[in-house]
């Protein structure tokens, strides 16, 4: 389940920070982690999502990198944020490199789980010691057969159960959903952050009865849209196109789409840090990145990659010129509340 939840905007408490600094030695002995036997410098270990994600990374990033440098790449999956923390605590490294969503990145950087970057692989690439790689967007998808006169055009429409009746679905992931609830309630984009959490929950109250499914897995979201279990859905763009390509009568809008960025990071203290940096520089360079995002249905964060992407593919990416102006980015740093508290409140709200 956690597989499908990249990106948790976040902040960290001082307590947690001090603990990780001092506690690594004390707790490290108590942890028992499998030790992976490994060659000294010719192998890099990368934490991946497995499945189609890894296939795309293997074909466009891993194998070309090995060909160029002679450094072999082995993978560990699924992506685990907790394991990154455990590795640094114990000093036993199962992987050198992983990808993090924005929220996790802020947290990881706060508690020093990742190696610093002093150079920029491309202009504007580095954020909180992570290297921006690719993005996905949460967009509005809907059934054309249920709304023959046109579907919802923004989150206000999504919330409008009189104009667009029928069951809906959103992700069970409050940090991503709360900004949408605020947009629906009329908060302008530039006033979104810091989040007015109370107002967001009041807005969510209005459609709670109509949200039939709070989806938790990407495949699940595509499936319920395809099967017509819901009339409209806040869905990742790649999953929407999966449903559309399967022949379902579905439509979408990029308007007010919400993007999450994935960042490459090097695990703090990794014995292969130098090779890991080399790999990341390679992975965000124009051509390999273009191949990867095209196969894995993301949008490239390095603008130089765009020239290697055919127009038909680019129109399906949140980062393309036309789409970029319609979507907005999550602002992790200015969130204004602890994501863990938001999540607990959200679960409580759901259960009530």
């Amino acid at each position, binding site marked *: *389940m*956690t597989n499908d*939840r990249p990106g*948790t905007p*976040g902040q960290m*408490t001082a*307590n*947690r920070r*001090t*603990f990780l600094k001092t*506690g690594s030695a004390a*707790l490290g002995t*108590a*942890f*028992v982690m499998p030790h992976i036997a490994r060659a000294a410098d010719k192998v890099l270990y990368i934490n991946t999502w497995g499945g189609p994600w890894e296939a795309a990374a293997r074909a466009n990033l891993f194998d070309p990198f090995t060909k160029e440098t002679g450094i072999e790449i082995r993978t560990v999956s699924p992506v*685990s*944020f*907790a394991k990154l*923390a455990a590795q640094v605590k114990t000093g036993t490294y199962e992987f050198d490199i992983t990808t993090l969503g924005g929220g*996790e990145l802020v*947290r990881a950087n706060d*508690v020093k789980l990742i190696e610093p970057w002093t150079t920029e692989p491309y202009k504007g690439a580095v954020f909180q010691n992570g290297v921006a790689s690719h993005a996905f967007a949460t967009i509005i998808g809907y059934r054309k057969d249920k709304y023959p006169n046109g579907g919802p055009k923004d989150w206000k429409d999504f919330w409008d159960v009189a104009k667009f009746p029928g069951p809906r679905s959103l992700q*069970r992931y409050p940090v991503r959903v709360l900004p949408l609830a605020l947009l629906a309630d009329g908060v302008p984009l530039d006033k979104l952050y810091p989040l007015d959490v109370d107002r967001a929950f009041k807005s969510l109250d209005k459609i709670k009865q109509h*949200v*039939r*499914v*709070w989806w*938790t*897995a990407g*495949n*699940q979201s595509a*499936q*319920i849209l395809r*099967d*017509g*279990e819901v009339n409209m859905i806040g869905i990742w763009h790649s999953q929407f196109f999966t449903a559309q390509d399967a022949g379902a009568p579905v439509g979408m809008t990029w308007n007010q789409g919400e993007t999450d960025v994935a960042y490459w990071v090097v695990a703090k203290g990794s014995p292969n840090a130098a090779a890991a940096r080399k790999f990341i520089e390679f992975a965000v360079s124009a051509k390999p990145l273009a191949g990867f995002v095209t196969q894995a249905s993301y949008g490239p964060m390095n603008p130089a990659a765009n020239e290697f992407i055919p127009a038909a593919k680019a129109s399906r990416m949140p980062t393309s010129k036309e789409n970029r102006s319609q979507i907005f980015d999550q602002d992790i740093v200015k969130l204004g509340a602890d*994501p*863990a508290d938001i*999540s*607990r409140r959200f*679960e*409580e709200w*759901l*259960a*009530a």
Partner: protein
Amino acid sequence: MQATISRLTERPNLWPWLLLTPLAVYLAVFFLVPLIDVVVMSFTEPRLTLGNYAHVVTGTLYQRVFINTFATAALVTIVCLLVGYPLAYLMSRASPRTAMLILALVTMSFWTSFLVRTYAWMVLLGDSGPIIGFLKAVGFEHPPHLLFTRFASTLAMVHILAPYMIMNIYSVMRKIDPVLIRSAQSLGARGASLFRHVYLPLTAPGIANGSVLVFVICLGFYVTPVLLGSPREQMIAGLIGTEIEEFLAFGRGSAMAIILLLITLVILTIYHRRFGLDKLWG
């Protein structure tokens, strides 16, 4: 000769225990040490504190989810029993061949991948699925929603867990001496009375074993209810996963895990007092 025997019985034979050493070492290293680590973290993360337990015990979210978890496990156990008991009876009365065939059908769910099973339920129970289609065809204008309800999640969990119940009850039923039933009949017991006073008590150990197993395993479920059930169905294992995997709140997650473990141990202790834990595997 006499002396040898008595000497052997006097001194406890240690050899069988020695054979257990590899297993004991394995369990100590891969189970006990991590468990102790979890206990330590629940009191020391993010600092030396009882706060993790205080939060979990007093938080309405956690109370609600703990209650939902145990209510779900109880419901699934009861349904497994209602479904499993007659089926086990059928197996115990059938020819060995037929019994094997039923057993194979029942355990088939073990061989299917968990995700395939879950998505199969989504297709079967969905609004455009065959069951709703059938209901519409026979004249239901507004058939009820099946998917994303407690009905769907319970059905899927029963499907996964029923084999544990059935095999436990079946193994007990098979061993019941038919003479006991015949003598009860010759003494005048019929139908319901025969079942209530003779057969049911004889099969009680199987019922207890199966129920405890199903209940305890079900406590750890969370993906099935979240994927197939209503939005209100959150299980404690899911919350633990979120705390640790998303928020690195190792302390709070550990405290929740320890509380779940303690409650489970209490249930097993009660069971042990009543039936004996050694009988759990039939």
